[in-house]
């Protein structure tokens, strides 16, 4: 199927080849237990630079391993990136400036700079990293949305007049987008990846093209179609 969709000659190194690993892992399983059991707000403060140097070498190494086809590398990489993203999110929450909302793309980019050795930049490592990180970013967000929704249903301390609130609607939005992406993944994996890289990783069209090993025009078309389709799915939900 991948070949039919026109995977291009870089495909040995392209993100798309590795992307099917994600399909094997069920969505719950991707999120480390620790992150699921403890609500976000309790984990707001994390000492800065915890394990900074060691994970930088480790992540760079694992990305290289993965590029060489070592499938175990992705399994080892995932929790490291996930942890960094969660820590960065928590760190941002502490010092977020007035009127500014945290940007997922800012987190993913900062995680990249912190986790991947910059002295010897490598486009493959970069692509792979953004592939993993934007996917995880999606999960962090949907996890948050689901937990919030569950909290409301379980009758957390929420005043009656807020039972049907704006808050709830917004979590539905992201959950709907996530289900749409899950459905899209089965129909057209590349488009799903393009959306993840764009919306959760903040990559430019050119960067996505490099990451997926396709042309700029293809990325543009992929996104246009995927956006229209996902929007329709979200409305239908």
């Amino acid at each position, binding site marked *: 199927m991948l070949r*039919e*969709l026109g995977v291009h000659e870089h495909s040995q190194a392209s993100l798309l080849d590795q992307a099917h690993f994600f399909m094997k892992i069920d969505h719950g399983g991707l999120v480390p237990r620790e992150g699921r059991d403890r609500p*976000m*707000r*309790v984990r*707001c*403060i994390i000492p*800065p*630079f915890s394990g900074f140097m060691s994970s930088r070498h480790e992540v760079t190494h694992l990305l290289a391993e993965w590029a060489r086809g070592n499938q175990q590398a992705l399994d080892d990489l995932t929790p490291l990136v996930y942890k960094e993203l969660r820590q960065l*999110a928590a*760190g941002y*929450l*502490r*010092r*977020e*400036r*007035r*009127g*500014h*909302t*945290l*940007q*997922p793309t*800012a987190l993913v*980019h*900062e995680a990249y*700079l*912190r986790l991947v050795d*910059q002295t010897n930049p490598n486009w493959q490592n970069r692509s792979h990293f953004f592939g993993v990180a934007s996917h995880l970013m999606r999960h962090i*967000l*949907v996890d*948050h949305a689901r937990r*919030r929704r569950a909290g409301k249903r379980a009758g*957390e*301390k*929420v*005043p009656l007049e*807020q039972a049907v609130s704006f*808050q709830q609607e*917004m*979590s539905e*939005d*992201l959950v*709907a*987008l996530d289900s749409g992406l899950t459905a899209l993944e089965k*129909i057209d994996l590349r488009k799903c990846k393009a959306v993840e890289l764009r*919306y959760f990783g*903040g*990559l*430019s069209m050119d960067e996505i093209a490099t990451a997926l090993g396709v042309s700029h025009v293809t990325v543009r*078309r992929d996104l*246009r*179609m995927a*956006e*229209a*389709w996902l*929007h*329709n799915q*979200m*409305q239908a939900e």
Partner: protein
Amino acid sequence: MTPERWAQIEELFHRAAECDPKQRTFLLDETCNSDLELRRQVEVLLAGEERAKDVLKAAVHREMASMSFPLVGQTISHYRVLDGLGGGGMGLVYRAEDLRLGRQVALKFLPEDSSKDPGALARFEREARSASALEHPNICPIYEFGEQEGRSFLVMQLLQGHTLREIISESEREKRPLEIRKLLDLALQIAAGLEAAHRHGIIHRDIKPANIFVTQEGQAKILDFGLAKLSRGETAEDLKVDTTKKDAPTVVRHENAGQMTPDPLLSRTGVAMGTAGYMSPEQARGEKLDARTDLFSFGLVLYEMATGQRAFKGDTGPSLHGAILTQIPIPAGQLNPQVPSKLSQIIAKTLEKNRNLRYQTVSELCADLEDLKRKAELRSRLRRAVAVGAPVLAVVVVSTIIWSEKRQSQSTPSLPDLKLQQLTLNSSENPVTGGAISPDGKYLAYTDLNGMHIKLIGNEQIQSVSQPDLFTNGGVTWEISAWFPDSTRFLANAHSAGQNPSLWSSDDTNIWVVSVLGGVPRKLRDHAVAWSVSRDGSSISFGTNKKTLVKVKSG
């Protein structure tokens, strides 16, 4: 869905999306033929295409926003959290409703690690309480200290407006420096708050633009008294980390993802560096501090208000420290020609490295700032008077200047003992339109767009004058004319509302007597404009429609 079908839908979607509406119908008619399902699917995609990007972006953004402010919607103690207001180095701030008192407040959560040291927390609480107890209009009051699941939070007055940080950044973005008048006004307010705190032995230690709030009414409020004591440990630690990290600068990408911005203020050490940028030399050296440290930091704030730039720049904590200890900033007047040279000098004096050479107290600084403000006001009033073409007023003002300058050259170098005192707190939407102080100096009678008011000077109490029945539906613009010598009554002219003051005539005006003891004003005469009351209070002069000046004996 088969891959073939998917490919078919996509192909048609792209082709149709490129067409104009007419061609599109034609294309769909032709291509879909009898395949109505294909047509429906493509049409659905086309219909939502325009909004799709925004909907996706909004879904991600909104979830992110709620992650940024996790407590929204919860009830903490007796506060219902309404929404996130932002946060600074010291933690998240929420808007909340006090369910007991029914008022809105700001909840500020302190960093988790700060709650761990009960001694530091107690010291902070004590200091914040004493600053709050001053009940000074330029210090933001703290109502309560609370704790939720081991996290301490403060309940503060909810302020509407912006921090000075935002105001400076905004004016920088628009390339429009703060007006000197506004700068001096804010500076004097901040100084007043600081002065009150210092007088009670409270030092702020972290004066910086982000800690000064300016309300919509233009009132400056100093935030976070005592908080610096809590954050000090963290500051030192972060800076230490930073020195080991020179080879790996933290670069943060924000807002537009296309551009990398090395922003040291946003980096992980940002909390410390933001503060480090406003430290006094003695603070940077870790010496024992006194109130003069706040003066230095305040000088840095003044510098930034005047120039839009920081006096000391540095990418890392150590380089900033080095700058604070050794560099002499470019004079503010060189960066912004609008800055009077006197202000440049004042700022330079607050930024003396040796604290013995600085202003020693806030009041010393205040005196110089007030002097400057008075001169600036006099100049602009003179300009305005001349421009309006009110020669009489101009003569009065000019003679005042000549007189005061003569006096100045004769005796002491300082101006006569004038002391400015702001009497009203009107917003720019509702400006004061006129006023007169009673002969005994006790009352101010003044008018604004809402009507006529009497204020007991030196007291916050303001009494609005009741409208006579005749005017209850509006239709009147009051103009205060003159006080009676006994300071219990004054004359006011009621003009027809909506008229340009330059067109006011006695035809549409009548004279009223207003008593400070209350009650509805009493009408004295129709179709006339009152001018003055004689010194013995026995006569008033007024103009009538016959264009004559008349004198009557008052009863």
